[in-house]
């Protein structure tokens, strides 16, 4: 068991080479089986997942686990499944990819009896195809050491360049940007998607974005807003909440999150349709989402847990930083996945056109 673990530690390439070698030695008596391949979003987060879930699971089962990183993108998953046998088994996906793929049938249906039943998850955490793994937020962040007099309280302040002069960082996507714009224009979190559902509402959001255009800096990778905040290139920025807590803990920065009007969503594990190791994948999902395992995650990165029992086991010192903490959740907006599934393509095109102007 120790030995298999070492092989996987040497890296996927070596493991694969050895698998090929073994297959050749056996002179084709059996096709070489691909190791269970798990794909997540990389970075610190995946490092934590590797320590908490991938390695222990490999040791438990005695079979190596390959882990790869991706940057999201529904087209990638669809292409893999359409190509025949996908070379990934378990993938962590965002809510929109989950909904699209489940409707398109590119994911395996999960066996919820093995996963402890849908009731053990928070709302939206358990679907036919996906088992929620984390809850994460897009929220406003600022440097607590720099904004000492007044602090932003929400998107209206984010748009207020007189009170808070300077550039603002915003994720370069229609999703989040349009919600933020409407909330800045006075729409309450609960009504955002109702307004956005009308063409007038979309126009209103774009008009509000127009106002802030000269002061906007766009970011795409999650690490970018952190460095922009640290260097002072921007006075505030939308961020992925987990990154802020992590940075404060490791580098002693004093970046602050604004939970008010933050937008949260669930990331889930899915199994690609036709995946070679779908049974092992199912076992892995059950293992990683088991409360005693999953509850260790917030210590490494401040993402909330969609498994109710796991969330309860998180120590209070970490729990306050999570999107799922009751006080935080109360002032947050839940990303409307259905809205974005329907409108993403059209709004993304329009957003890109707007950005490109």
């Amino acid at each position, binding site marked *: 068991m120790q030995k298999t673990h070492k092989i996987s530690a040497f890296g996927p390439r070596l493991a694969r080479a050895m698998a090929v070698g073994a297959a050749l030695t056996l002179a084709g008596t059996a096709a070489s089986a691909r190791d269970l391949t798990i794909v997540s979003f990389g970075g610190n987060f995946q490092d934590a997942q590797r320590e908490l879930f991938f390695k222990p699971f490999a040791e438990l089962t005695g079979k190596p686990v390959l882990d790869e990183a991706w940057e999201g993108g529904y087209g990638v998953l669809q292409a893999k499944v359409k190509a025949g046998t996908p070379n990934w088994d378990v993938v962590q996906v965002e809510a929109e990819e989950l909904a699209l793929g489940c409707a398109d049938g590119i994911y395996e249906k999960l066996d919820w009896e093995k996963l402890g039943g849908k009731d053990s998850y928070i709302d939206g955490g358990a679907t036919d195809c996906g088992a929620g793994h984390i809850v994460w937020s897009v929220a406003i962040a600022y440097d607590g050491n720099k904004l000492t007099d007044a602090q932003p309280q929400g998107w209206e302040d984010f748009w207020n360049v007189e009170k808070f002069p300077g550039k603002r960082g915003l994720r370069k996507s229609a999703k989040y940007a349009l919600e933020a714009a409407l909330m800045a224009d006075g729409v309450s979190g609960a009504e955002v998607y109702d307004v956005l559902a009308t063409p007038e509402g979309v126009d209103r959001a774009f008009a509000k974005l127009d106002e802030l255009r000269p002061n906007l800096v766009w970011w795409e990778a999650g690490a970018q807003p952190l460095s922009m905040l640290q260097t002072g290139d921007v006075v505030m920025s939308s961020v992925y909440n987990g990154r802020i807590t992590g940075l404060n803990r490791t580098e002693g920065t004093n970046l602050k999150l604004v939970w008010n009007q933050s937008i949260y969503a669930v990331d889930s594990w899915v199994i690609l349709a036709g995946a070679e190791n779908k049974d092992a994948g199912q076992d892995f999902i059950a293992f990683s989402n088991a409360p005693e395992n999953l509850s260790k995650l917030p210590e490494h990165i401040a993402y909330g847990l969609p498994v109710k029992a796991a969330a309860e086991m998180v120590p209070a010192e970490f729990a306050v930083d999570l999107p799922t903490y009751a006080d935080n959740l109360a002032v947050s907006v839940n990303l409307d996945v259905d809205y974005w599934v329907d409108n993403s393509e059209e709004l993304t095109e329009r957003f890109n*056109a707007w950005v490109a102007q």
Partner: protein
Amino acid sequence: MKGSPRLRALILIAPLLFFLGLFFVWPLITVITQSVSDPAVSRVLPRTADLIGDWDGEGAPSAEIQAAFRADIVGATDDQAVGDVTRRLNSSKSGFRSLMGKTVTAVRENPDVDLAEVDKRWADPAFWKAIQDNASPYTDSFLLAAVDMERDSAGSVVAMKEGTSANFTILMRTLWTSALVMLCCLVIGLPYAMIAASVTGWKRAVLLGAVLLPLWTSLLVRTAAWMIILQDNGIINQVLTGLGITSGPLALIYNRFGVVLAMTHVLLPFMVLPIYSVLITVPGNLMSAAASLGAHPIRAFLRVLLPLSLRGVISGALLVFMTSIGYYITPALLGGAGDQMISSVIAEYATRSANWSMAAAIGLILLVLTLALYAVYNRLSRDPIQAR
């Protein structure tokens, strides 16, 4: 055994033909078909596709068409195929995602259900129009959309509503940026190649090495190096502010300047090498000869050296331009939002929205553009010494 040598020759080149076919012709054909066809609707909803052509677009379609649609839904058992239809229809008309999900479930439960009761959107002709528009397995809508055009309800080609799509703008920007990079490469590369061709020994080795060296480093590394040099607290800005030349950092990165600068650096070898290779075949004393015949150095350059290096200049310019058109990483890392090039749009369509037809259509337009340029190149670069 007549014809056997030909057969043998054919067998010899078979691997080559196979390679060409597999890695060149086949993908090309795939791209072309993808860009003009999307058979999802006609395949999954054959009955509806047959009938809906007759619908006049006013009000909800006839009961017959609606029945055909329900029958198609019942008949469609492949979820992935239904997914394809949904995605296609949602591209044309936002909202089809949720509408189809709801409808498929309802119709499978009760094949005779009234669609308008399942969802009131079925009473909206716009949704039926989307089905009608996509009923044919062949369409020019992707190619049109790739340049921000569409067909209006009368079927004539018109520009899309402003602000809805920026493909054409980005395509033009790509061409413009590429032209700029080409020009920068030319301005730097032509004298550089001339100097390299005129010196000998270690000097030539150093000059050529300097231009070749970047080719041995990965594109990503070079781009990252530029990020370090150009950023607000990068070397250049530190020196400038340190010397008191500028009061604050100059904006060197996340704009067109950074993109053009880095692309020029990366693509310079493709300009220098063709010019250099042409120039070293030019006899060294042609310039001397011109001078002895009374030509001022500038006139000698214009009349003799420049025309002779023109073939290299044209090859270099085209190489740089055509390579630039496909650039993706450098503009993404060094450019601002307004500097992204067309490849990023293709990537967006392919990896994000899984709209392979749009990706193929823009790719095809790029391909046609490149081929046109190549044709121009072929005409221009015909060897004047061989031309009759």
